[in-house]
């Protein structure tokens, strides 16, 4: 009940940001997932319901192991729901739809035999983009994540944070309508985190993307998102939706404001009650 109520609220309060009206880009209905393991079943997600209108930036926060990554896998069409369904851009999702949905995974999962540049090029190569074009595009993105000097390095020659940045660049190069990001900045220092967050916002605004963003940093969640979904402990449920009414473009100064502090506090309290 609380859930439905807050959801209505969120829908109403969702005024700002460059989102045009229209059917939601992502609609999740009664989504449940149970993992079968040798030691019995684990219910990872329980009856998840939400919608993400086109062009929104939605954050997901919740305790470790609550099912955030599982949810993202399902949204990407990589994991079949045990119950419920997912509608992406008005079509029920049954398999990956790379043009619509792209993922930046929690663990970088770079192809170890490809250089940083080749990894970023990979989605373009898959769809047959011409060599020169994809090279330019990939280089641009490597520049963006600060790794232009490392274009010819193999993943095992990069630091943890560098690998994660390559993975982010790869997600951008795929250029999907909807970008799912699973703690993309976890391995990065605060400075890089801020810079990349701003770059992400720029890309999001410029290309009218929809972003679903898992993070553990509440500051980051408030700074980036239009709305933050708070998930409960296992089995994951959505226990709160917090709309972030801060205006766009966001600036670092906002972080010091009282509203920002309150919003952060609000989410923090939600999580702690789980």
């Amino acid at each position, binding site marked *: 009940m609380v859930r439905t109520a807050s959801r209505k609220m969120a829908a109403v309060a969702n005024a700002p940001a460059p989102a045009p009206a229209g059917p939601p880009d992502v609609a999740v209905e009664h989504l449940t997932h149970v993992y079968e393991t040798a030691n019995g079943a684990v219910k990872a997600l329980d009856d998840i319901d939400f919608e993400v209108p086109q062009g929104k930036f939605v954050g997901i926060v919740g305790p470790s192991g609550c099912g955030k990554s599982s949810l993202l896998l399902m949204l990407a069409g990589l994991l079949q729901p045990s119950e419920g369904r997912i509608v992406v851009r008005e079509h029920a999702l049954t398999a990956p739809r790379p043009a619509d949905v792209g*993922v930046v*995974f929690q663990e970088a999962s770079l192809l170890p*035999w490809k250089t940083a540049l080749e990894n970023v090029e*990979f989605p373009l190569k*898959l769809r047959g983009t011409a060599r020169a074009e994809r090279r330019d595009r990939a280089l641009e993105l490597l520049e963006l994540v600060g790794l232009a000097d490392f274009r010819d390095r193999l993943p095992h020659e990069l630091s943890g944070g560098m690998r994660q940045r390559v993975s982010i660049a790869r997600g951008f190069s795929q250029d999907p309508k909807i970008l799912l990001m699973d703690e993309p900045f976890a391995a990065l220092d605060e400075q890089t985190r801020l810079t990349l967050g701003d770059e992400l916002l720029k890309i999001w605004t410029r290309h009218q993307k929809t972003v679903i963003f898992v993070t553990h940093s509440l500051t980051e969640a408030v700074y980036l998102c239009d709305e933050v979904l708070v998930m409960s402990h296992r089995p994951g449920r959505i226990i709160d939706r917090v709309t972030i009414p801060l205006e766009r473009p966001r600036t670092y100064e906002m972080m010091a404001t009282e509203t920002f502090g309150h919003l952060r506090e609000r989410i923090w309290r939600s999580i702690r009650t789980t």
Partner: protein
Amino acid sequence: MPATAVSPSAASAPRIRRGPWLPPRALGLLTLAALLLAWEVLPRLELVPPVLVAPLSTVLESGVASAGTFAEAMGVTMVEIAFALVFAYGVGGILGLVLGSVKPLRGAVLPLVSSIYAVPFIVAYPLLTAWIGIGMESKVIFAGIYGMFPMILATAAGVRTVDPAFVRAARSMGATRAQILFQVLVPAAFPSILSGLRIAGSLVTIGVVVAEMLASTAGLGFLITQYRSMFQTPEVYFGIILVLCLTGFLDFLIGCVERKAAAWRPRKELI
């Protein structure tokens, strides 16, 4: 500076491993030389009966004397091996990829494949000649199929051990089945595929030569059996040397592929 006593020499310079007293290549060559020497000396001193092992020099001499015969046979065998290899690698590799990556096939068909492989067809080779004949094509068919099985099995095993995260990432980026196979699974499974190439390669060589030995009218295997039943031991061993050359050449080719493909691997940690 810490006021602790540390023996300066131990720590000041990074440990330099003292080079072995003999470079490894030299050790290998030395061993080879020892083997060749034994090969020459043992039969000469009649420590082994020369009808079973002929001294190396005699072997080379008689080989050179019948160079024409051997060259012709070598040509035949090489052509057979080449065709059989193409078959074993091509068909075996593709079947291995498919069987290893498509789950129902992997569960239902792969075990059958390895069971069929367990049938010792080579023992029944003379019987098989009724169907496959005795010409060059029969060697190609037999050796091709003989080598195809380990290729299938090794490729499938390699594919199965690929980190699923890679496949997942590629799928989410829109890779088609073929793209997943050739751009993700093949490079990721390469070490195992490589050992498939090696084992299949040797089975092809063995298949061709043994089939020639059992029933044929041409090729190195044919020559070896013929010389053997005529007790022309030096020629037998010259034939063996030629077979070794063929495997050596094949191994060299595989080695090239290996070096190229392994370039990205981190250097192994020594224990």
